[in-house]
């Protein structure tokens, strides 16, 4: 394979800025897909992805392209996930490329995720091809947006390509730019094999399918391979390139992108960022940058119906096959029974998992309030890691509690700076910097406890900025905070699943709000329900749900019985979705009460 005729590139864009549409046009114009095969946004193959309009897992596709000079090129488009939860995956996909198309909506301008991904691309030394999309929109302001881009990456505004992915206008120039401006890969086909895993998916019949970019050497069908970080050995039973489907080839050489199948039954053996080498003649060192991704956000998942526990386990097992970042272990809650403590990369990841459990496995689950992992230094010098608030040790033995902090980058129209700064302050944010990207757009930076953004921060950010602000964040380490455990009791019984860790200064306020919210959510019952919020033994808030005053439909004669029975049966079904805490029936929403408290 002539390295000079290969271009490996990716597309960086914000949600809805047109990445998928542009990808469609590229596939069309290179004839990779015929019009008949064309399905809108082919790269997003999971239903969920298509609905959300974002790409969750990266894929790759190979296009053949005949340039105007008559020469044939191979263009490998490596798709990248576009959300903050998957920054590491993005960085690995970028690593597999030499160039990146930076797509920016000519009307909306550049957004936070785009900038952070752009920085990742610059760090990876990629050639950036800036492209303004949707230039045909009446609200497009290509000159201003082009100037913002060149301020960030250098170059001249007039070199920024202008396209309409929707109509296809300007797409040929993008293809030309890929060939002319993206460097061809380099590498020695004779050197020991060195290839990076930039993604893997699980296939029920064939095991883990590894998506890879070869840097050095040549991988041939049947070669014994070694994953250098996990130290697992397999045989490359089938290798191939990725067109719309998988197309087997005999070898993949330096500079090429393709897939490997080797009967790998466990996706945990094929971690993104790991290096594939030949186990007989291994590379001296791995491609740098491998990291074991660790969950940052934890939540208890419980089946609504206790009988579904094994089904939930089986479903999580299946999800994990395709999602190495998902972790879970069984836990027991006095209030909710048997369930799992599940770790996620972030909030989007958590939502995706919940939706898939619901949609693909039909499981009705209760999710507890998400929390972060705390490191607790005990007075005896030991340290413990707490992933479930109810496991927080007693205050007497705690020396200090550390919590994860993030650095948030918020890109917003300048008119919302005030309200966004207020939001960040309310969430214990520490101001870092403000930078004007152009006269109307600001890059606002804050350091915040991750715990303060795991639930409604993003929604709040969107709502106070009328949807215009965008957010990106990175983990910057742990810091000591004055935290306490806030417990909730119903008629004197503690409800472990409602315990939360909060900052001491906010505990009274949170306790009162939580008690009030629970009062709204817990329906009247036959008996009075006392709701208490407490720190340790000290009750800091109390509310009462008054008992039902009347519940009897007046008459009950011959014509009323079946109607009445059916009504009771319906209520009985509704009751099944409640959890019994002592004598109190608690609806599922109550376990997420803190989530719905709002910031009022």
């Amino acid at each position, binding site marked *: 394979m002539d390295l000079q005729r290969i271009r490996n590139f990716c597309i960086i864009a914000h949600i809805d800025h047109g990445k998928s549409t542009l990808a469609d046009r590229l596939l069309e114009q290179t004839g990779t897909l015929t019009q008949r095969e064309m399905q809108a946004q082919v790269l997003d193959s999971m239903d969920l992805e298509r609905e959300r309009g974002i790409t969750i897992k990266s894929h790759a596709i190979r296009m053949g392209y005949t340039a105007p000079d008559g020469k044939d090129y191979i263009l490998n488009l490596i798709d990248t996930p576009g959300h903050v939860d998957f920054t590491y995956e993005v960085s690995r996909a970028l690593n597999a490329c030499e160039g990146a198309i930076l797509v920016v909506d000519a009307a909306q301008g550049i957004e936070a995720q785009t900038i952070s991904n752009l920085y990742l691309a610059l760090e990876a030394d990629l050639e950036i091809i800036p492209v303004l999309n949707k230039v045909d929109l009446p609200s497009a302001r290509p000159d201003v947006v082009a100037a913002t881009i060149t301020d960030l990456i250098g170059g001249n505004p007039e070199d920024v390509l202008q396209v309409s992915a929707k109509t296809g206008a300007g797409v040929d120039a993008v293809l030309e730019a890929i060939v002319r401006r993206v460097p061809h890969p380099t590498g020695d086909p004779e050197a020991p094999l060195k290839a990076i895993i930039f993604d893997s998916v699980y296939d029920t019949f064939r095991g883990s399918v590894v998506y890879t970019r070869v840097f050095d050497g040549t991988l041939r069908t049947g070669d014994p391979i070694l994953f250098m970080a996990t130290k697992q050995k397999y045989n490359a039973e089938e290798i191939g390139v990725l067109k719309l489907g998988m197309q087997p080839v005999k070898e993949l050489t330096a500079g090429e992108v393709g897939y490997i199948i080797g009967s790998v039954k466990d996706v945990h053996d094929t971690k993104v960022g790991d290096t594939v080498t030949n186990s007989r003649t291994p590379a001296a060192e791995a491609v740098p940058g491998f990291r074991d991704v660790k969950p940052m956000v934890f939540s208890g998942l419980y089946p609504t119906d206790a009988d579904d526990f094994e089904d939930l386990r089986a479903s999580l097992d299946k999800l994990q096959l395709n999602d190495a970042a998902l972790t879970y272990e069984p836990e027991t809650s006095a209030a909710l029974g048997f369930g799992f403590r599940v770790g996620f990369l972030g909030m989007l990841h958590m939502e995706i998992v919940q939706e898939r459990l619901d949609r693909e496995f039909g499981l009705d689950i209760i999710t507890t309030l998400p929390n972060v992992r705390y490191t607790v230094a005990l007075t005896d010098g030991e340290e413990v890691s707490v992933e479930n608030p109810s496991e927080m040790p007693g205050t007497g033995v705690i020396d200090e509690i550390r919590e994860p902090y993030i650095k948030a980058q918020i890109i917003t129209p300048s008119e919302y700076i005030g309200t966004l700064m207020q939001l960040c302050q309310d969430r214990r944010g520490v101001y870092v910097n403000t930078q004007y990207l152009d006269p109307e757009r600001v890059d606002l930076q804050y350091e915040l406890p991750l715990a303060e953004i795991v639930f409604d921060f993003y929604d709040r950010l969107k709502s106070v900025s009328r949807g215009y602000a965008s957010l990106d964040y990175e983990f910057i380490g742990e810091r000591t905070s004055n935290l306490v455990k806030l417990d909730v009791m119903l008629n004197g019984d503690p409800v472990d699943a409602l315990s939360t860790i909060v900052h001491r200064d906010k505990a009274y306020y949170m306790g009162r709000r939580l008690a009030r919210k629970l009062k709204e959510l817990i329906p009247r*019952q*036959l*008996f009075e329900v006392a709701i208490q919020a407490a720190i340790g033994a000290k009750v800091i808030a109390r509310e009462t749900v008054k008992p*039902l*005053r*009347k*519940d*009897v*439909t*007046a*008459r*009950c*004669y*011959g*014509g009323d*019985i*079946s109607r*009445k*029975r059916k009504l*009771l*049966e319906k*209520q*009985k079904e509704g*009751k*099944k979705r409640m959890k019994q805490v002592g*004598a109190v029936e608690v609806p599922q929403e109550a376990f997420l009460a803190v989530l719905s408290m709002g910031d009022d």
Partner: protein
Amino acid sequence: MAGLYLHIPFCTQRCVYCDFYFVTTQRTTAPFVRAMEAEIEAYGREFGTQEPVETLYLGGGTPSLLPLEEVAHLIAAVEQHFDTSALAEVTLEMNPENATPDYLRGLKALGVTRLSLGIQSFFADDLAFMNRAHDAAQAEAAVEAVGAVFDDFSVDLIFGLPEQPFEYWGANLEKAVRLGAPHLSTYSLTIEDRTPLAKQVALGRVSPVTDETMRERFLFTMEFLTARGFDHYEVCSFSKPGHRSRHNQGYWRHRNYLGFGPSAHAFWKTTRSLAHRWSNVRHLGRYQALLEQHELPLDEREQIPPDALADEHILLSLRLMEEGLDLARLRDEYGVDLRLEKRAALADLERGGLVTVTDDRVRLTREGAVVADAVALKLIG
């Protein structure tokens, strides 16, 4: 021992709260009565010999709109096609405006033993609000007229009307008792779907009273009537000794009954585990047309699964304030052992003063009667 219910779907005007099936436009009732005779005959062929009929109940609608000879035809049809050797009670629902001495004496001569009088209130503004066909004077006169002919009769009263002053309710009970009614059925105003009242509520023209108000009125009713010698034998029913409704007790005791007429319901338990409920079409014209074609006017029919049957038994027998729910019978006949399955719930209910559990029976307390449905849900859910 079975009960028969005959639904007579004619009214002169529409009461705002009523969700029973009725028509107000019919000029003649004769074709309907012929259809119902045919229905009685048809069911008589299948059920007539299975169980003797103990009670007959003509409800509505307004059965007192039927001329005497048509009432006679219907009773005759029942006697002809069913075993009435044990017939102990024949009730007819009557509106006050129909309570003329001749009509009353005529009914008695036909074998009617008990009347259920739809008074609802003795106050003119209440009656106007409900769109009843009688006025306050007729209400009072009717109770006296009925009492002059029948020993056994009931007065229906409704409480919790929007804007109804508390004194009205006390006065209504007082008057019914003073006029000598040996049985009272007291209902809290229920806003049923698809009634003129529901529409007025939806439009914001009428605001329903609070649960708290309903509760007070109901507790007052129980207090007031029991203090005056009435047995509170079912959630909504109060009677002087010997004047209970046998027919209605059949419903709460989960006995078999057949229903004739449009929208009427039936329940028939063939064996311990095989029971059906069915209902008739809710349309007078279709009802008559089907019977003319020698077809049963069936609308829905379901076989009741054993667990649903047990649920029914719990919710029905709980309504019987004195008899209560017989735990041994529930266990032996319906296969549900509440002492095992609902131990905690029973204990909670008893501790909370909503039920008593004595002699292996669960009985609602007065506080429990106010939330009877929620108590039932606790025991079946």
